[in-house]
């Protein structure tokens, strides 16, 4: 059963109080290859490895079948400065 970006986004939004989530399906629809941006205040004060582990924890069940998953994890503050840089 392939996953859709929308259902993964919803899980992260509720599971991590994420203020912004963007998941892209890079698999042409087979549902096994995603890239993921999560913005959450729960990442504050946490090292990158711990942040990624939080996301992996929320999506533990899904990641058993998703074989390629790349992610970015930002605090709201980092996300704001990134948006300003790129605008």
């Amino acid at each position, binding site marked *: 059963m392939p996953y859709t970006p929308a259902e993964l986004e919803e899980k992260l939004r509720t599971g991590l109080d994420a203020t912004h989530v963007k998941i892209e399906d890079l698999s042409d629809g087979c549902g096994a290859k995603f890239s993921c941006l999560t913005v959450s205040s729960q990442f504050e004060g946490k090292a990158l490895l711990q942040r990624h582990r939080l996301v992996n924890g929320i999506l533990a069940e899904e*990641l*058993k079948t998703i074989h390629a998953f790349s992610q970015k994890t930002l605090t709201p503050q980092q996300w704001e400065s990134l948006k300003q840089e790129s605008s």
Partner: protein
Amino acid sequence: MFRILQRFSPVKRRATTLICARYSTGSKEHIDGLVKEKNLVVFMKGTPDAPRCGFSNAVVQILNMHGVEKFDAHNVLEDEDLRQGVKDYSNWPTIPQVYMQGEFLGGCDIMIEMHKNGELIEELKKAGIRSALLDIPEEK
């Protein structure tokens, strides 16, 4: 001959199963042995010379960029037990996985991020490796 084989095969099969269960390459003990007291170990798809996945390739390229060409690499595509075992070992769902001095450092995203923000140079230093990037004069 055939009958003799038949007669002995169940016993033999059970013995093989026991040995496999005991010495599984995916077991914690086995992976401990592969990563503990080793400076740098990479579990990847393919080999450093011929990676079979873009993420594994990226990790090898990053290490090479820092002048690190000597590290233990294990090809999980050749060993299904190890492929699953290493995921359980680190509680990390994907390959590649990089270990430094027995500690899980991260997968591809983390290596890329640490490469970009300079942390990788520091991590390598902890393992007694001087990054080759330090020897490149900064552009003025």
